[in-house]
Protein backbone atom coordinates (compact mmCIF):
# COMPACT_ATOMS: atom_id res chain seq x y z
CA UNK A 1 0.00 0.00 0.00
CA UNK A 2 1.30 3.46 -0.80
CA UNK A 3 2.10 5.97 1.89
CA UNK A 4 -0.53 8.59 1.02
CA UNK A 5 -3.32 6.01 1.17
CA UNK A 6 -1.96 4.65 4.45
CA UNK A 7 -1.88 8.16 5.89
CA UNK A 8 -5.47 8.79 4.84
CA UNK A 9 -6.62 5.57 6.46
CA UNK A 10 -4.79 6.45 9.67
CA UNK A 11 -6.47 9.87 9.75
CA UNK A 12 -9.87 8.26 9.20
CA UNK A 13 -9.24 5.72 11.97
CA UNK A 14 -8.06 8.46 14.31
CA UNK A 15 -11.19 10.48 13.64
CA UNK A 16 -13.33 7.41 14.34
CA UNK A 17 -11.53 6.82 17.63
CA UNK A 18 -11.79 10.50 18.53
CA UNK A 19 -15.53 10.20 18.99
CA UNK A 20 -15.06 7.80 21.89
CA UNK A 21 -12.20 9.71 23.44
CA UNK A 22 -13.19 13.33 23.15
CA UNK A 23 -15.66 15.08 25.45
CA UNK A 24 -19.11 15.61 23.89
CA UNK A 25 -18.49 19.25 23.27
CA UNK A 26 -15.45 18.59 21.11
CA UNK A 27 -16.84 15.62 19.24
CA UNK A 28 -19.85 17.78 18.41
CA UNK A 29 -17.47 20.40 17.05
CA UNK A 30 -15.56 17.79 15.13
CA UNK A 31 -18.70 16.59 13.34
CA UNK A 32 -19.27 20.12 12.13
CA UNK A 33 -15.60 20.54 11.25
CA UNK A 34 -15.60 17.38 9.13
CA UNK A 35 -18.53 18.67 7.09
CA UNK A 36 -16.82 22.03 6.65
CA UNK A 37 -13.63 20.19 5.71
CA UNK A 38 -15.52 18.36 2.96
CA UNK A 39 -16.70 21.74 1.73
CA UNK A 40 -13.08 22.93 1.70
CA UNK A 41 -11.89 19.72 0.04
CA UNK A 42 -14.23 20.47 -2.84
CA UNK A 43 -12.91 23.99 -2.93
CA UNK A 44 -9.33 22.74 -2.83
CA UNK A 45 -9.89 20.69 -5.96
CA UNK A 46 -10.64 23.88 -7.90
CA UNK A 47 -8.29 26.28 -6.14
CA UNK A 48 -5.48 24.16 -4.72
CA UNK A 49 -5.13 21.67 -7.54
CA UNK A 50 -6.42 23.40 -10.67
CA UNK A 51 -5.52 26.98 -9.74
CA UNK A 52 -9.06 28.29 -10.11
CA UNK A 53 -9.49 30.99 -7.47
CA UNK A 54 -13.24 31.00 -7.03
CA UNK A 55 -14.92 33.47 -4.70
CA UNK A 56 -18.32 31.94 -5.23
CA UNK A 57 -18.32 28.46 -3.78
CA UNK A 58 -21.11 29.36 -1.35
CA UNK A 59 -23.31 29.05 -4.42
CA UNK A 60 -22.50 25.33 -4.68
CA UNK A 61 -22.69 24.77 -0.93
CA UNK A 62 -26.11 26.42 -0.94
CA UNK A 63 -27.23 24.53 -4.06
CA UNK A 64 -26.62 21.27 -2.19
CA UNK A 65 -28.10 22.58 1.04
CA UNK A 66 -31.29 23.84 -0.59
CA UNK A 67 -31.45 20.89 -2.98
CA UNK A 68 -31.73 18.63 0.04
CA UNK A 69 -33.65 20.82 2.47
CA UNK A 70 -36.26 22.19 0.05
CA UNK A 71 -36.99 18.78 -1.44
CA UNK A 72 -37.41 17.29 2.04
CA UNK A 73 -39.46 20.18 3.31
CA UNK A 74 -41.71 20.82 0.34
CA UNK A 75 -41.68 17.56 -1.62
CA UNK A 76 -41.51 15.30 1.43
CA UNK A 77 -38.57 13.36 0.05
CA UNK A 78 -36.64 11.14 2.42
CA UNK A 79 -32.95 11.69 3.05
CA UNK A 80 -31.42 9.50 0.32
CA UNK A 81 -33.51 10.81 -2.60
CA UNK A 82 -33.03 14.32 -1.23
CA UNK A 83 -29.26 13.78 -1.24
CA UNK A 84 -29.58 12.77 -4.90
CA UNK A 85 -31.46 15.98 -5.63
CA UNK A 86 -28.70 17.89 -3.86
CA UNK A 87 -26.04 16.11 -5.90
CA UNK A 88 -27.76 16.88 -9.19
CA UNK A 89 -28.56 20.46 -8.18
CA UNK A 90 -24.99 21.29 -7.21
CA UNK A 91 -23.50 19.55 -10.25
CA UNK A 92 -25.89 21.42 -12.51
CA UNK A 93 -25.24 24.78 -10.90
CA UNK A 94 -21.48 24.18 -11.04
CA UNK A 95 -21.74 23.06 -14.67
CA UNK A 96 -23.58 26.19 -15.74
CA UNK A 97 -21.45 28.51 -13.62
CA UNK A 98 -18.31 26.88 -14.97
CA UNK A 99 -19.39 27.08 -18.60
CA UNK A 100 -19.80 30.83 -18.24
CA UNK A 101 -17.20 31.81 -15.63
CA UNK A 102 -14.39 29.82 -17.24
CA UNK A 103 -14.49 32.14 -20.23
CA UNK A 104 -12.62 34.48 -17.92
CA UNK A 105 -9.46 33.97 -15.90
CA UNK A 106 -7.57 35.48 -12.97
CA UNK A 107 -9.21 38.47 -11.33
CA UNK A 108 -12.12 38.42 -13.77
CA UNK A 109 -12.84 34.81 -12.76
CA UNK A 110 -12.85 35.81 -9.10
CA UNK A 111 -15.32 38.60 -9.77
CA UNK A 112 -17.58 36.56 -12.02
CA UNK A 113 -17.81 33.70 -9.50
CA UNK A 114 -18.47 36.21 -6.72
CA UNK A 115 -21.28 37.71 -8.80
CA UNK A 116 -22.78 34.30 -9.53
CA UNK A 117 -22.79 33.49 -5.83
CA UNK A 118 -24.35 36.84 -5.05
CA UNK A 119 -27.08 36.12 -7.59
CA UNK A 120 -27.65 32.79 -5.86
CA UNK A 121 -27.92 34.48 -2.48
CA UNK A 122 -30.41 37.01 -3.82
CA UNK A 123 -32.41 34.19 -5.41
CA UNK A 124 -32.65 32.45 -2.05
CA UNK A 125 -33.90 35.70 -0.52
CA UNK A 126 -36.32 36.30 -3.37
CA UNK A 127 -38.09 32.98 -2.90
CA UNK A 128 -38.65 33.78 0.73
CA UNK A 129 -41.92 31.87 0.92
CA UNK A 130 -40.00 28.63 0.35
CA UNK A 131 -36.60 29.40 1.86
CA UNK A 132 -37.64 31.76 4.69
CA UNK A 133 -34.69 33.91 3.56
CA UNK A 134 -31.96 34.75 6.06
CA UNK A 135 -34.03 33.41 8.91
CA UNK A 136 -34.03 29.98 7.28
CA UNK A 137 -35.98 26.93 8.31
CA UNK A 138 -35.50 23.89 10.49
CA UNK A 139 -35.67 20.32 9.27
CA UNK A 140 -37.73 18.32 11.77
CA UNK A 141 -35.81 15.72 13.70
CA UNK A 142 -38.14 12.94 12.54
CA UNK A 143 -37.04 13.17 8.91
CA UNK A 144 -33.32 13.44 9.63
CA UNK A 145 -32.52 9.77 9.43
CA UNK A 146 -31.09 7.24 7.02
CA UNK A 147 -32.01 3.55 7.30
CA UNK A 148 -33.25 4.05 10.82
CA UNK A 149 -30.11 5.83 12.03
CA UNK A 150 -30.97 9.07 13.79
CA UNK A 151 -28.72 11.72 12.27
CA UNK A 152 -29.65 14.22 14.94
CA UNK A 153 -28.08 12.06 17.65
CA UNK A 154 -24.49 12.83 18.57
CA UNK A 155 -23.25 9.48 17.36
CA UNK A 156 -25.36 9.27 14.18
CA UNK A 157 -24.31 12.73 13.20
CA UNK A 158 -20.64 12.18 13.94
CA UNK A 159 -20.36 8.97 11.98
CA UNK A 160 -22.45 10.26 9.08
CA UNK A 161 -20.04 13.19 8.87
CA UNK A 162 -17.09 10.82 9.12
CA UNK A 163 -18.41 8.62 6.30
CA UNK A 164 -18.88 11.61 4.02
CA UNK A 165 -15.45 12.90 4.96
CA UNK A 166 -13.77 9.54 4.42
CA UNK A 167 -15.38 8.88 1.07
CA UNK A 168 -14.41 12.35 -0.12
CA UNK A 169 -10.86 12.03 1.16
CA UNK A 170 -10.32 8.67 -0.49
CA UNK A 171 -11.81 9.85 -3.78
CA UNK A 172 -9.72 13.01 -3.81
CA UNK A 173 -6.64 11.11 -2.71
CA UNK A 174 -7.02 8.75 -5.66
CA UNK A 175 -8.02 11.50 -8.06
CA UNK A 176 -5.00 13.70 -7.53
CA UNK A 177 -2.64 10.78 -8.12
CA UNK A 178 -4.48 9.64 -11.23
CA UNK A 179 -3.57 11.04 -14.66
CA UNK A 180 -6.57 13.36 -14.59
CA UNK A 181 -5.47 14.90 -11.29
CA UNK A 182 -1.85 15.22 -12.43
CA UNK A 183 -3.12 17.13 -15.43
CA UNK A 184 -5.09 19.51 -13.23
CA UNK A 185 -1.89 20.24 -11.33
CA UNK A 186 -0.11 20.81 -14.63
CA UNK A 187 -2.80 23.29 -15.62
CA UNK A 188 -2.33 25.11 -12.32
CA UNK A 189 1.44 25.20 -12.88
CA UNK A 190 1.49 26.32 -16.49
CA UNK A 191 -1.65 26.50 -18.53
CA UNK A 192 0.04 27.47 -21.81
CA UNK A 193 2.46 24.57 -21.56
CA UNK A 194 -0.37 22.13 -20.79
CA UNK A 195 -2.26 23.34 -23.86
CA UNK A 196 0.84 22.98 -25.99
CA UNK A 197 1.21 19.38 -24.87
CA UNK A 198 -2.20 18.73 -26.35
CA UNK A 199 -4.38 18.87 -23.21
CA UNK A 200 -7.83 20.34 -23.60
CA UNK A 201 -7.33 22.76 -20.74
CA UNK A 202 -10.74 24.37 -20.97
CA UNK A 203 -12.62 21.09 -20.73
CA UNK A 204 -10.52 19.81 -17.86
CA UNK A 205 -10.99 23.02 -15.90
CA UNK A 206 -14.71 22.67 -16.38
CA UNK A 207 -14.69 19.06 -15.20
CA UNK A 208 -12.62 20.07 -12.17
CA UNK A 209 -15.06 22.83 -11.31
CA UNK A 210 -18.04 20.50 -11.64
CA UNK A 211 -16.38 17.93 -9.38
CA UNK A 212 -15.39 20.69 -6.97
CA UNK A 213 -18.87 22.23 -6.89
CA UNK A 214 -20.53 18.84 -6.46
CA UNK A 215 -18.35 17.94 -3.47
CA UNK A 216 -18.99 21.35 -1.93
CA UNK A 217 -22.69 20.84 -2.60
CA UNK A 218 -22.67 17.50 -0.83
CA UNK A 219 -21.15 19.24 2.17
CA UNK A 220 -23.99 21.77 2.08
CA UNK A 221 -26.56 18.98 1.92
CA UNK A 222 -24.90 17.11 4.79
CA UNK A 223 -24.81 20.30 6.84
CA UNK A 224 -28.57 20.73 6.47
CA UNK A 225 -29.25 17.07 7.14
CA UNK A 226 -26.98 16.71 10.17
CA UNK A 227 -27.61 20.05 11.83
CA UNK A 228 -31.23 20.38 10.76
CA UNK A 229 -31.17 23.85 9.37
CA UNK A 230 -31.00 25.63 6.01
CA UNK A 231 -30.73 29.38 5.63
CA UNK A 232 -29.65 31.98 3.10
CA UNK A 233 -26.69 33.10 5.23
CA UNK A 234 -24.91 29.97 3.98
CA UNK A 235 -25.19 31.36 0.47
CA UNK A 236 -23.67 34.72 1.43
CA UNK A 237 -20.15 36.01 0.84
CA UNK A 238 -18.56 34.82 4.11
CA UNK A 239 -19.33 31.24 3.18
CA UNK A 240 -17.43 31.69 -0.06
CA UNK A 241 -14.44 33.00 1.88
CA UNK A 242 -14.32 30.31 4.59
CA UNK A 243 -13.16 27.43 2.38
CA UNK A 244 -10.51 29.68 0.89
CA UNK A 245 -9.23 30.43 4.39
CA UNK A 246 -9.28 26.79 5.46
CA UNK A 247 -7.39 25.78 2.37
CA UNK A 248 -4.83 28.57 2.65
CA UNK A 249 -4.24 27.78 6.30
CA UNK A 250 -4.04 24.03 5.93
CA UNK A 251 -2.14 24.08 2.64
CA UNK A 252 -3.54 24.50 -0.85
CA UNK A 253 -3.06 21.43 -3.00
CA UNK A 254 -2.65 19.03 -0.08
CA UNK A 255 -5.31 16.40 0.53
CA UNK A 256 -5.48 16.94 4.29
CA UNK A 257 -4.96 20.70 4.28
CA UNK A 258 -8.70 21.45 4.25
CA UNK A 259 -9.24 19.39 7.42
CA UNK A 260 -6.27 20.94 9.20
CA UNK A 261 -7.35 24.41 8.14
CA UNK A 262 -10.95 23.85 9.23
CA UNK A 263 -9.88 22.53 12.65
CA UNK A 264 -7.49 25.40 13.10
CA UNK A 265 -9.94 28.14 12.10
CA UNK A 266 -12.82 26.63 14.05
CA UNK A 267 -10.89 26.51 17.29
CA UNK A 268 -9.20 29.82 16.68
CA UNK A 269 -12.58 31.51 16.56
CA UNK A 270 -13.96 29.34 19.33
CA UNK A 271 -11.10 30.09 21.73
CA UNK A 272 -10.72 33.75 20.92
CA UNK A 273 -14.45 34.36 21.29
CA UNK A 274 -14.11 33.08 24.84
CA UNK A 275 -11.43 35.68 25.54
CA UNK A 276 -12.61 38.76 23.71
CA UNK A 277 -15.56 40.08 21.74
CA UNK A 278 -13.17 41.07 18.99
CA UNK A 279 -12.57 37.42 18.15
CA UNK A 280 -12.70 38.05 14.43
CA UNK A 281 -9.83 40.45 14.91
CA UNK A 282 -7.77 37.77 16.64
CA UNK A 283 -8.59 35.35 13.84
CA UNK A 284 -7.61 38.01 11.31
CA UNK A 285 -4.26 38.68 12.95
CA UNK A 286 -3.38 35.00 13.09
CA UNK A 287 -4.32 34.68 9.45
CA UNK A 288 -2.13 37.58 8.44
CA UNK A 289 0.77 36.11 10.41
CA UNK A 290 0.29 32.72 8.81
CA UNK A 291 0.14 34.05 5.29
CA UNK A 292 3.24 36.13 5.97
CA UNK A 293 5.29 33.36 7.54
CA UNK A 294 3.72 30.17 6.17
CA UNK A 295 2.48 31.18 2.73
CA UNK A 296 2.06 27.53 1.76
CA UNK A 297 -0.08 26.76 4.76
CA UNK A 298 0.66 24.28 7.52
CA UNK A 299 0.81 21.10 5.47
CA UNK A 300 2.25 22.84 2.42
CA UNK A 301 5.18 23.97 4.55
CA UNK A 302 5.50 20.57 6.13
CA UNK A 303 5.65 18.98 2.69
CA UNK A 304 8.18 21.46 1.41
CA UNK A 305 10.53 21.26 4.39
CA UNK A 306 10.28 17.77 5.78
CA UNK A 307 7.80 15.38 4.22
CA UNK A 308 8.06 15.52 0.43
CA UNK A 309 5.72 12.58 -0.10
CA UNK A 310 2.84 14.24 1.76
CA UNK A 311 -0.21 13.93 -0.50
Amino acid at each position, binding site marked *: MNRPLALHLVVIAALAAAFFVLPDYHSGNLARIMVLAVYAMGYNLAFGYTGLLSLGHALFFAAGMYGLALSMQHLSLTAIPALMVALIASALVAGITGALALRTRGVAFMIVTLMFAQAGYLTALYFVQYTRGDEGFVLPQAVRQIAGVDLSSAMGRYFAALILFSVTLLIIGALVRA*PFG*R*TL*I*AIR*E*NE*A*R*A*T*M*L*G*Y*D*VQRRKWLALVASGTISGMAGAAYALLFGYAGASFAAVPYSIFPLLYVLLGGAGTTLGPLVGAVFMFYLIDLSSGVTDAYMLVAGVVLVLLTLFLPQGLLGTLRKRWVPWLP
Partner: protein
Amino acid sequence: MATVILETRGLTKTYAGVQANTDIDFDLPEGQIRALIGPNGAGKTTFVGMLCGRIPVTRGKVIFDGRDISGLPAHKRITLGIAYTFQITSVFAGLSVHENIALAARRAGGNAARVTETLERVGLADRADQTAGDLSYGHQRILEIGMGLAQSPRLFILDEPTQGLAESEVAAFKTLITGLKNTTILLIEHNMSVVMETADYITVLDQGMTLAEGTPDAIRANRAVRAAYLGTADA
Protein backbone atom coordinates in the same frame (compact mmCIF):
# COMPACT_ATOMS: atom_id res chain seq x y z
CA MET B 1 9.79 13.48 -53.95
CA ALA B 2 8.84 13.43 -50.30
CA THR B 3 5.27 14.29 -49.38
CA VAL B 4 4.61 17.70 -47.92
CA ILE B 5 3.70 17.42 -44.25
CA LEU B 6 2.97 21.09 -43.65
CA GLU B 7 1.98 23.92 -45.90
CA THR B 8 0.66 27.41 -45.49
CA ARG B 9 -1.14 29.60 -47.98
CA GLY B 10 -1.38 33.37 -47.62
CA LEU B 11 -0.67 33.21 -43.90
CA THR B 12 -0.97 36.73 -42.50
CA LYS B 13 -0.90 38.28 -39.04
CA THR B 14 -1.61 41.86 -38.16
CA TYR B 15 -1.16 43.06 -34.58
CA ALA B 16 -3.03 46.33 -34.14
CA GLY B 17 -1.56 47.74 -37.32
CA VAL B 18 1.82 45.97 -37.13
CA GLN B 19 2.08 43.59 -40.08
CA ALA B 20 3.98 40.72 -38.43
CA ASN B 21 3.47 38.15 -41.23
CA THR B 22 2.33 38.91 -44.77
CA ASP B 23 1.01 36.29 -47.19
CA ILE B 24 3.43 33.53 -46.32
CA ASP B 25 3.31 30.48 -48.60
CA PHE B 26 5.38 27.73 -47.09
CA ASP B 27 5.94 24.05 -47.90
CA LEU B 28 7.71 21.61 -45.64
CA PRO B 29 8.51 18.13 -46.98
CA GLU B 30 8.24 15.24 -44.57
CA GLY B 31 11.48 14.24 -42.85
CA GLN B 32 13.30 17.49 -43.53
CA ILE B 33 15.15 19.62 -41.02
CA ARG B 34 14.16 23.12 -41.93
CA ALA B 35 15.70 26.18 -40.35
CA LEU B 36 13.70 29.37 -40.12
CA ILE B 37 15.98 32.36 -39.76
CA GLY B 38 15.69 36.11 -39.92
CA PRO B 39 16.53 39.23 -37.95
CA ASN B 40 14.87 40.07 -34.63
CA GLY B 41 11.23 40.99 -35.15
CA ALA B 42 11.11 39.31 -38.58
CA GLY B 43 7.98 37.41 -37.52
CA LYS B 44 9.39 33.92 -36.92
CA THR B 45 7.69 33.30 -33.57
CA THR B 46 4.46 34.70 -34.94
CA PHE B 47 4.65 32.36 -37.92
CA VAL B 48 5.14 29.17 -35.92
CA GLY B 49 2.58 30.38 -33.38
CA MET B 50 0.02 30.42 -36.17
CA LEU B 51 1.08 26.97 -37.30
CA CYS B 52 0.38 25.36 -33.98
CA GLY B 53 -2.65 27.47 -33.14
CA ARG B 54 -1.23 29.53 -30.30
CA ILE B 55 -1.69 32.73 -32.24
CA PRO B 56 -4.95 33.30 -34.14
CA VAL B 57 -4.39 34.08 -37.81
CA THR B 58 -5.59 37.26 -39.41
CA ARG B 59 -5.97 35.43 -42.72
CA GLY B 60 -4.62 32.40 -44.54
CA LYS B 61 -4.57 28.62 -44.27
CA VAL B 62 -2.49 25.99 -42.47
CA ILE B 63 -2.49 22.47 -43.91
CA PHE B 64 -0.98 19.61 -41.93
CA ASP B 65 -0.71 16.16 -43.45
CA GLY B 66 -3.14 17.07 -46.22
CA ARG B 67 -5.75 18.38 -43.83
CA ASP B 68 -6.79 22.00 -43.34
CA ILE B 69 -6.21 22.60 -39.62
CA SER B 70 -6.79 26.36 -39.69
CA GLY B 71 -9.96 25.98 -37.65
CA LEU B 72 -8.56 23.67 -34.97
CA PRO B 73 -7.64 24.90 -31.48
CA ALA B 74 -4.02 24.50 -30.43
CA HIS B 75 -4.46 21.39 -28.29
CA LYS B 76 -6.11 19.50 -31.14
CA ARG B 77 -3.31 20.39 -33.53
CA ILE B 78 -0.80 19.10 -31.00
CA THR B 79 -2.61 15.78 -30.76
CA LEU B 80 -2.29 15.40 -34.53
CA GLY B 81 1.43 15.00 -33.95
CA ILE B 82 2.93 18.46 -33.53
CA ALA B 83 5.25 19.37 -30.67
CA TYR B 84 6.28 22.91 -29.79
CA THR B 85 8.95 24.44 -27.59
CA PHE B 86 8.60 28.04 -26.54
CA GLN B 87 11.15 30.78 -27.24
CA ILE B 88 10.86 31.74 -23.57
CA THR B 89 11.36 28.53 -21.60
CA SER B 90 8.06 27.13 -20.45
CA VAL B 91 8.10 24.08 -18.18
CA PHE B 92 6.06 23.03 -15.14
CA ALA B 93 8.38 24.74 -12.70
CA GLY B 94 6.78 23.34 -9.55
CA LEU B 95 6.81 19.71 -10.70
CA SER B 96 9.65 17.23 -10.92
CA VAL B 97 11.65 16.73 -14.10
CA HIS B 98 10.20 13.24 -14.35
CA GLU B 99 6.64 14.52 -14.02
CA ASN B 100 7.27 17.13 -16.73
CA ILE B 101 8.34 14.48 -19.19
CA ALA B 102 5.57 12.12 -18.08
CA LEU B 103 2.91 14.76 -18.72
CA ALA B 104 4.24 15.20 -22.23
CA ALA B 105 4.54 11.49 -22.95
CA ARG B 106 1.18 10.51 -21.48
CA ARG B 107 -0.88 12.83 -23.65
CA ALA B 108 0.85 11.41 -26.70
CA GLY B 109 0.14 7.85 -25.62
CA GLY B 110 3.65 7.21 -24.30
CA ASN B 111 4.31 4.82 -21.42
CA ALA B 112 6.76 4.82 -18.51
CA ALA B 113 9.44 3.30 -20.71
CA ARG B 114 9.28 6.23 -23.06
CA VAL B 115 9.67 8.61 -20.13
CA THR B 116 12.80 6.82 -18.92
CA GLU B 117 14.19 6.62 -22.42
CA THR B 118 13.62 10.34 -23.03
CA LEU B 119 15.28 11.28 -19.74
CA GLU B 120 18.33 9.25 -20.76
CA ARG B 121 18.37 10.70 -24.22
CA VAL B 122 18.52 14.32 -23.11
CA GLY B 123 20.83 13.53 -20.22
CA LEU B 124 18.45 14.42 -17.40
CA ALA B 125 18.04 10.92 -15.95
CA ASP B 126 20.09 11.70 -12.85
CA ARG B 127 18.03 14.82 -12.21
CA ALA B 128 14.65 13.15 -12.68
CA ASP B 129 13.52 13.84 -9.12
CA GLN B 130 14.60 17.47 -8.99
CA THR B 131 12.02 20.22 -9.18
CA ALA B 132 12.10 21.62 -12.69
CA GLY B 133 12.18 25.21 -11.42
CA ASP B 134 15.40 24.48 -9.51
CA LEU B 135 17.28 23.41 -12.65
CA SER B 136 19.76 25.76 -14.30
CA TYR B 137 18.46 27.78 -17.21
CA GLY B 138 20.21 25.51 -19.71
CA HIS B 139 18.81 22.37 -18.15
CA GLN B 140 15.32 23.83 -18.20
CA ARG B 141 15.66 24.43 -21.94
CA ILE B 142 16.88 20.89 -22.40
CA LEU B 143 13.95 19.65 -20.34
CA GLU B 144 11.58 21.46 -22.65
CA ILE B 145 13.22 19.86 -25.67
CA GLY B 146 12.84 16.52 -23.88
CA MET B 147 9.13 17.19 -23.42
CA GLY B 148 8.86 17.62 -27.16
CA LEU B 149 10.77 14.41 -27.82
CA ALA B 150 8.61 12.49 -25.36
CA GLN B 151 5.63 13.27 -27.57
CA SER B 152 7.27 11.45 -30.50
CA PRO B 153 5.99 14.19 -32.76
CA ARG B 154 5.71 13.98 -36.52
CA LEU B 155 6.48 17.68 -36.70
CA PHE B 156 8.70 19.24 -34.06
CA ILE B 157 8.76 23.03 -33.93
CA LEU B 158 11.55 24.57 -31.86
CA ASP B 159 11.80 28.30 -31.21
CA GLU B 160 15.46 29.18 -30.56
CA PRO B 161 16.21 26.04 -28.54
CA THR B 162 19.96 26.67 -28.17
CA GLN B 163 19.63 30.19 -26.81
CA GLY B 164 21.55 30.30 -23.55
CA LEU B 165 22.98 26.80 -23.83
CA ALA B 166 26.65 26.10 -23.17
CA GLU B 167 28.89 25.08 -26.09
CA SER B 168 28.84 21.41 -25.12
CA GLU B 169 25.07 21.47 -24.79
CA VAL B 170 24.74 23.05 -28.23
CA ALA B 171 26.91 20.28 -29.67
CA ALA B 172 24.74 17.65 -27.97
CA PHE B 173 21.66 19.35 -29.37
CA LYS B 174 23.01 19.17 -32.92
CA THR B 175 23.64 15.46 -32.55
CA LEU B 176 20.22 14.90 -31.02
CA ILE B 177 18.34 16.78 -33.70
CA THR B 178 20.12 15.23 -36.66
CA GLY B 179 19.65 11.78 -35.17
CA LEU B 180 15.85 11.96 -35.02
CA LYS B 181 14.02 9.56 -37.27
CA ASN B 182 10.43 9.92 -38.48
CA THR B 183 10.33 13.52 -37.31
CA THR B 184 10.16 16.62 -39.44
CA ILE B 185 11.82 19.59 -37.79
CA LEU B 186 11.13 23.27 -38.06
CA LEU B 187 13.85 25.08 -36.21
CA ILE B 188 14.00 28.79 -35.48
CA GLU B 189 17.63 29.52 -34.76
CA HIS B 190 20.00 32.44 -34.43
CA ASN B 191 23.10 30.33 -33.94
CA MET B 192 24.52 30.03 -37.46
CA SER B 193 26.66 27.02 -36.71
CA VAL B 194 23.56 25.10 -35.63
CA VAL B 195 21.68 26.21 -38.74
CA MET B 196 24.46 25.40 -41.19
CA GLU B 197 25.29 22.03 -39.64
CA THR B 198 21.81 20.67 -39.08
CA ALA B 199 19.47 22.16 -41.66
CA ASP B 200 18.65 20.49 -44.96
CA TYR B 201 16.96 23.61 -46.14
CA ILE B 202 16.55 27.18 -44.93
CA THR B 203 13.76 29.72 -45.08
CA VAL B 204 14.66 33.34 -44.43
CA LEU B 205 12.00 35.67 -43.11
CA ASP B 206 12.41 39.42 -43.18
CA GLN B 207 9.81 41.95 -42.15
CA GLY B 208 7.13 39.31 -42.12
CA MET B 209 7.80 38.02 -45.63
CA THR B 210 9.78 35.17 -47.13
CA LEU B 211 13.00 36.74 -48.34
CA ALA B 212 14.68 33.59 -49.64
CA GLU B 213 14.63 29.81 -49.46
CA GLY B 214 17.36 27.35 -50.32
CA THR B 215 20.03 24.97 -49.17
CA PRO B 216 22.53 26.21 -46.58
CA ASP B 217 25.08 26.85 -49.32
CA ALA B 218 22.65 28.75 -51.47
CA ILE B 219 21.51 30.86 -48.53
CA ARG B 220 25.07 31.60 -47.53
CA ALA B 221 25.75 32.83 -51.04
CA ASN B 222 22.52 34.83 -51.33
CA ARG B 223 23.30 38.54 -51.45
CA ALA B 224 19.87 39.73 -50.35
CA VAL B 225 20.10 37.50 -47.29
CA ARG B 226 23.57 38.76 -46.48
CA ALA B 227 22.36 42.31 -46.76
CA ALA B 228 19.32 41.72 -44.56
CA TYR B 229 20.75 39.41 -42.02
CA LEU B 230 24.08 37.72 -42.35
CA GLY B 231 25.69 40.87 -43.76
CA THR B 232 27.64 42.14 -40.80
CA ALA B 233 28.35 38.72 -39.36
CA ASP B 234 29.66 37.24 -42.58
CA ALA B 235 31.30 40.09 -44.46
